[in-house]
């Protein structure tokens, strides 16, 4: 995990003591994955930026009571991913953007990026999943949590996490060409 281990604990303690450089180190270590995770769940760059930013603002507010012996990443990711799920659910309920538009818009964004290393169908496959399924896939494969950890973060039964992972992998399997291990 990014930022895990001794460095991270030192950064947390330093940030709690008022070291801006330690806090910046913590931010820079965790921002890329937090933003990526939010983006892959909500498929909206502006919303992902807001969600990741809110996660870090929550971290600032809770910094003094944070237990520096525990890893910072899971605490941050729990906030960001849960908020991302809420945001994506709310958007789906509002039906402001239909599923087809979401996939098309997301894929089009990728097509417009010259450095995009993936075919559109990988992105589209991810977009075809529900926000809850996307969140589980992102927590497992982007943030690298175990199914047990994911179950605790999302307050879900372990079996539900496994079934969502299976459903997510089924959707992505054709694209990546082989079945993933759990």
């Amino acid at each position, binding site marked *: 995990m990014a930022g895990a281990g001794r460095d991270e604990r030192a950064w947390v303690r330093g940030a*709690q003591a008022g070291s*801006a450089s330690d*806090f*910046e180190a913590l*931010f*820079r270590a965790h*921002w*890329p994955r937090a*933003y*990526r995770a939010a*983006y*892959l769940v909500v498929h909206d*760059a*502006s*919303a*992902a*930026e*807001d969600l*990741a*930013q*809110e*996660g*870090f*603002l*929550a*971290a*600032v*507010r*809770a*910094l*003094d*009571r944070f237990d520096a012996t525990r890893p910072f990443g899971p605490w941050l990711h729990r*906030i960001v991913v849960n908020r991302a799920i*809420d*945001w994506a659910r*709310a*958007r789906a*309920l*509002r039906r*402001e953007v239909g599923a087809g538009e979401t996939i098309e818009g997301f894929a089009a*964004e*990728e097509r417009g*990026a010259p*450095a*995009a*290393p*993936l075919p559109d169908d*990988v*992105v589209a496959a*991810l977009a075809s999943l529900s926000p809850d399924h996307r969140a589980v*896939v992102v927590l497992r*494969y*982007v943030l*690298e949590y175990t199914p047990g950890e994911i179950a605790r973060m999302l307050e879900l039964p372990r079996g539900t996490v496994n079934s969502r992972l299976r459903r997510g992998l089924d959707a*992505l399997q054709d*694209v*990546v060409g*082989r079945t*993933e*291990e759990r």
Partner: protein
Amino acid sequence: MKPSPVRDALLAVRVPAELEAQRRAWAVVRGAYAEREPGPRHGRRLRLLVAVAVLAALVAAALSPPGRSVGGWIADRVAGEEPTEPALVRLPTAGQLLVLSEQGPWLVRPDGSKRLLGSYEGTSFSPRARYLVATEEREVVAVEPDGTVRWTVTRPTPVADARWAPVPGFHVAYREGETLRVVEGNGKGDRLLAENVAPVAPAWRPGEGRTVLAYASTDGRVHVVEADGQQLWATDPGAKPEQLVWSDDAGRLLVVTTGRRHPLYTAGGRAAGALETPEGQDVLDVSFAPGTREIGYSLYAPKSGQSSIVLAGERLQQGEGRFEDIVFSPNGRWLLTGWPEADQLLFIGLPGVRRLVTVPGIRDEFDPGGVGATSFPRVLEWCCRAPR
């Protein structure tokens, strides 16, 4: 973790504007970190005691007669009319909200998504909401809606009440101590406009053409001046002004005072009657309904603890506590107010109050990760009326 094509694929997805997003977010988060007050490491027991005390107070408040009456009032007004929104997930009509919380100003989009613009103390939209002007201690700052800073003016002493002039938006006015200053819309040409200025936000006259500004002076007068400082007219000294509000057509200027009588003036400075409010009731906020000269205002009676919202002489709402804001939607079909005692925003459908949408949990909504008591945010603007 074993090698994983799925992980590789997801990590290879190009996330738009990653570095720019990181830069913007860092500016906001760094500001929040810089402003935090580190708590003592041995203070957990104290915090626990405070939390218990706050919880007890909240339980007591909920069980108290005012608490019950708030709940009952909500039930009375909402039952059978409109559901309570679970969160601020959408606005009932077009436009963007500007909300000021302890953390700073938030821009709320029609889909309910929101962005903290920084740790500023006050802010206001530019005429077409392409920018916002904000103040923080000694700085006047123009920012883009994503929080990117466009320009900054730094003064020797604290500044406040920055307001962007209407279309074409060539000027920004702000207060510094007892002076009023104007800077061009590109952040250049900062200059003194007036001295002996009262602590009241200046108000640009709406509409294109001449750029005209109203401000209050410390002797109780209201002055209307051109952007170059040339005075067009001024009132006689009167009750202390607290708020200056123009109608959309620029045909009326309302001077909200500390008294019961709040005079109205024409664009040329002639007296045009007054808004009279009841004895013993404070005016919390005032606005003209868009496209009209109808006045909406919130009254608070400290003795009874009751508030009411009045539009064009008709009482629309009343309840325990304070209705803090009077903010109309750009199309004039909704009136939005904050209700701290109920921790709610109320969207009141107009005309005739046929619809009422309540949004609870507002303190938490604008204080992510916060703990303990936090002040209720203020709704500043719902952009944009056209023309401004």
